[in-house]
């Protein structure tokens, strides 16, 4: 935990420096160079980079402060001897986050509805080892409820990817405004 604390602070500090550099970026057609936008213009108006740059400086100072606390061992994580992420934690991250990533990636290919079904089968059935009856009823029920609530009632069109033709008849039934 103690090691993770200082690594975290260093990563965030580096990120703050990157953000300072990024804040100085000007629009591609602007002839003034990088960092020309960090202060006030001739009318005394703060320019576009002023606010994000000031914030990244504050973030950087906080990281140093966290580092000092780590050195002096005044914050709880800098004294803790727990393991930051054990085996269970690493496995959990890989299986769960992996599943979510696959769900999102598949959404734009085979539609959010089919992706949702696969994700629920994977999580409830395989990871959770629930009974298959439960798994399948949730996995097949969820897309139906989602369609009725989001697309039909709330008029929010979810991604369909290449599966769009499958949904055209459903639009005909549910999203026909009655104009003839």
């Amino acid at each position, binding site marked *: 935990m103690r090691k993770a604390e200082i690594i975290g602070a260093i990563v965030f500090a580096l990120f703050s420096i990157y953000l300072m550099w990024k804040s100085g970026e000007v629009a591609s057609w602007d002839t003034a160079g990088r960092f020309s936008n960090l202060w006030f213009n001739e009318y005394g*108006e703060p320019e*576009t980079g002023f*606010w994000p740059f000031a914030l990244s400086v*504050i973030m950087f100072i906080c990281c140093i402060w966290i580092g000092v606390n780590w050195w002096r061992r005044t914050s709880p994580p800098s004294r803790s001897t727990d393991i930051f992420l054990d085996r269970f934690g690493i496995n959990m991250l890989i299986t769960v*986050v992996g599943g979510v990533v696959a769900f999102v990636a598949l959404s734009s290919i085979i539609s*959010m509805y089919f992706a949702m079904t696969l994700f629920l089968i994977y999580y*409830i059935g395989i*990871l959770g080892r629930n009974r298959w009856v439960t798994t399948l009823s949730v996995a097949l029920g969820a897309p139906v409820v*989602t369609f009725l609530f989001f697309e039909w009632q709330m008029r929010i069109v979810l991604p369909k990817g290449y599966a769009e033709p499958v949904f055209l008849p459903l639009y005909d039934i549910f999203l026909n405004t009655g104009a003839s």
Partner: protein
Amino acid sequence: MEVLTLLWDGILTAFEPQNLLLMFIGVTAGLFIGAMPGLGSVNGVAILLPATFLVPPTSALIFLAAIYYGAMYGGAISSVTLGIPGASTAVATTFDGRPLALKGRADRALVTAALASFIGGTVANLLFTGFAPPLASVALRFGPPETFALMLLAFSTFVGLGGDDVPKTIFSVAFGLLLATVGADPVEGTPRLMFFGLEAFRANINFLVLAIGVYGIGEMLWTINSTRNKVTMTEAKISAKGIVDSAKEASGAWRGTAIGSFLGFFVGILPAAGATPGSLMAYGITKMTSKKPEEFGKGSLDGVAAPEAANNSASTGSMLPMLTLGIPGSPTTAILLGGMVLWQLEPGPRMFSDRADIVWPLIGSFYVSNLIAVVVNLAFIPLFLWMLRMPFTILAPIIFVLSIVGGYAATEKIYDVWLIVIFGVLAFFMRKLDYPVAPMVLAIVLGPITEETFRQTLTRSRGDFGAFFESAIAAPIIIIALLLIFMPLIKSIWRKLRPRKAREGT
């Protein structure tokens, strides 16, 4: 009194069978829309707006206001049961609502939230009825420097509260504010912080994207990791008696409710602010003035009551600038305003005198909707508790699906869903390292207003920072805010000085 006669007539109009039915449907629909992460009153009102052409304008407005009320109650439900705030106004409700749910006391939290909301709404209605026109002139005095001062005060309530690691809290606030600057500059329109040159970053990062990432994914990962999949969310029984018992316990949270009701209203009537800073400040002040501040964040009923009373009160309050100034205080009131334009009602300074036939039934319906909302909400609590008793290996994936679908629904961009996943993993690591994540989520909501008013003030004074202190309203607020921010620093210096003196004395 003339006002009372007008109000009484208004309430009678609201009690007409058609209006009563519309309110009942509106409140119920609003409750469920609000309880869905990613959807809020703004979606409900926007989608049902065209449907209201079937009824006369007064009934239509009453219906939309009922959805608004229902959604406000619903926001607390997802904050408590799923730990995902359904709207920015309900973020503060997760602070204590979530710990209560994890302790198996979700029933207490939900009942407290409902009752506090009811009281907050009622207090706001009374203030609204009595003082709408004079309060409108107070709202007019809040220009850019005053609004900036108010935002600073909202942030300071976080930092000044102490307890948490101070540099990590400030880091989290600054990071949230920085995320709010990604995309097009609000003033110039030019792109900023376009990471990797991706076109998708041109749009600003929506609050819900960060909130769903942090709470829907990050907190879930953290819960799975720390409980090893063995959580039973609640063992609460479904019974009428349980609700009565909870209500008795909830009455202990009267302090938070009172603070929230009044503070929420006064912050809510300021056009730019809305209900989010109101609920946040109510939480902060309740904690600061509490006899048991150490209970906050671990499951204090006062900590649920304060933000819930405040956000309902503020939502009613934010109707005031809309009706009297024609300025929407929130996206939802903006759409309501659009609706009123369709019915050829022009909200503005003359609304109260010219269109009393619309205004008073609407205000009357606030009272009735509020009453219906609390009853409907209490009636549905068993259903939400039943959801919580599902095995965690089923509930968790359902929450993930809700987060992804709800996150997509919020902005309808698949790249935002990717951001949700990234923020979720980031929030998991931040949470493990004791970085508070709530300040970050609130900062992204208040960030654009803060930057805009900061820059407007300086543009107006052509770069003179003195402009912030020239205003009789802004100056004292800024001074209080700065004192609160530096409180932990002052305290620690004080503590260091005192023992030394004591040692020198002996």
